[in-house]
């Protein structure tokens, strides 16, 4: 009888979880659409920018590269490898198929 009760209990829990998952899926779709609508709205996109100071204040002292690229641009980062001089090499490769990529070099100076 205990096992049967546990079985019933588990089935009920699973049903609840399935409903919860459906709710979450719906909320995600809804929110993704909302974000798209908000960011595509021309009156909002006009104000969708940050200043150089905003960015520099988030990464104090570092050298920064701001990259603006068309949707779908591929950024490729290989595992760092040891170079011939014994130093590790770090690489970033950018490839666009639909438009030029803009890169800005920024630092506090």
């Amino acid at each position, binding site marked *: 009888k205990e096992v049967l009760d546990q079985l019933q209990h588990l089935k009920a829990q699973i049903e609840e979880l399935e409903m919860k998952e459906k709710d979450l899926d719906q909320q995600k779709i809804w929110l993704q659409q909302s974000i798209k609508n908000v960011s595509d709205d021309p009156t909002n996109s006009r104000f969708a920018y940050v200043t150089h100071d905003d960015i520099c204040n988030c990464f104090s002292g570092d050298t920064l590269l701001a990259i603006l690229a068309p*949707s*779908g641009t*591929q950024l490729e*980062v290989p595992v*760092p490898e040891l170079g011939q001089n014994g130093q590790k090499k770090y690489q970033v490769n950018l490839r666009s198929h639909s438009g030029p990529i803009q890169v800005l070099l920024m630092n506090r100076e």
Partner: protein
Amino acid sequence: GGLSPRDKIFYYFSSSPSKRLREINSMIKTGETP
């Protein structure tokens, strides 16, 4: 996107999740692929 046989991580603008960038940062820091 994902890992290729040559151990790279790909990120696609306006498409890949932020999590992918965190994986890249971890790989750069540790030298190990996720």
